[in-house]
């Protein structure tokens, strides 16, 4: 399911991303010389962008252990941005949903500074968590490729509908009588009656006071 942006620090022998063959993942488009901007961080560049049938993968050209991945289920919207006031270069603007929004970890120990460094320096071979990143810009050196890139992203996004039954419903549906009954307020009231009855029968507090006898 949607897991937001994650970092990858491994790549296949041909320099591209490892593909998830289980999901019949294929590369749909390769865009060289693409800068990436995560949230408000400064641009990291250059890198190569791989658009697959499942995910967006950006791999640094300089550091073979550096890269980021976001699956299409997490890429909730994307757009072409050409306004220089918004960003100095034309780019793809996108929003990412990390699944569990308002992640407690980032809310509570939310000191942003330095949060990313340990992941890269210490955890080689493992995957970093960037689920707090909700905005990403992809800045291709060749701005004329933006329209095509946008279209490829649309096409691949459409290949990835949400799994059925994963929708976070505003209204929850009940499918059988048991479910309905278990959710009825006071639905297990019958049990409460039994417990209360037992309590009344056995609880010494309800017995007649015998203090005078035992006291003598």
């Amino acid at each position, binding site marked *: 399911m949607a897991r937001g942006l994650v970092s990858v620090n491994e790549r296949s022998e041909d320099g591209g991303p490892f593909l998830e063959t289980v999901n019949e993942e294929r590369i749909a488009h390769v865009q060289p010389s693409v800068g990436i901007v995560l949230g408000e961080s400064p641009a990291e560049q250059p890198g190569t962008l791989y658009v697959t049938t499942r995910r967006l993968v950006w791999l640094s050209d300089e550091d073979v252990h550096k890269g980021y991945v976001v699956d299409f289920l997490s*890429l*909730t*919207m*994307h*757009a*072409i*941005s*050409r*306004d220089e*006031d*918004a*960003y100095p270069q034309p780019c793809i*603007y996108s*929003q990412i*949903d990390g699944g569990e*929004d308002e992640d407690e970890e980032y809310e509570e120990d939310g000191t942003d500074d330095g949060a990313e460094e340990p992941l890269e320096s210490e955890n080689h071979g493992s995957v970093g968590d960037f689920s707090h990143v*909700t905005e990403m810009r992809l800045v291709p050196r060749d701005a004329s490729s933006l329209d095509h890139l*946008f279209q490829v*992203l*649309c096409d691949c*996004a*459409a290949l990835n*509908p*949400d799994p059925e039954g994963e*929708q976070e419903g505003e209204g929850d549906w009940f499918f059988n009588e048991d479910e309905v009954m278990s959710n009825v307020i006071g639905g297990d009231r019958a049990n409460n009656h039994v417990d209360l009855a037992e309590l009344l029968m056995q609880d010494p507090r309800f017995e007649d006071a015998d203090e005078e006898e035992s006291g003598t």
Partner: protein
Amino acid sequence: MLLPGFAMLFFSYFKELVGKEVTVELKNDLAITGILHSVDQYLNIKLENTRVVDEAKYPHMLSVKNCFIRGSVVRYVQLPPDGVDVDILHDATRREARGA
């Protein structure tokens, strides 16, 4: 893929709105107004000539002229008044209710 009836109904209905102005509100509260360019069976929505309704909150989105929105993050779609054909909607929902 077999769509749930209501999704199919919305899909058919939104297709009729292509070329009209709609406002799409996302589950993250971002609301984008634009011309409906296309909609697919998963209710993914493409808008053109977009503008952000709450510009103070999302100033960087001002620049975006076209965008693709994942169907699963759409909370509401506000329809243009002249885009709502009540009779057609009534018909469609009744047919749906009958399971046709």
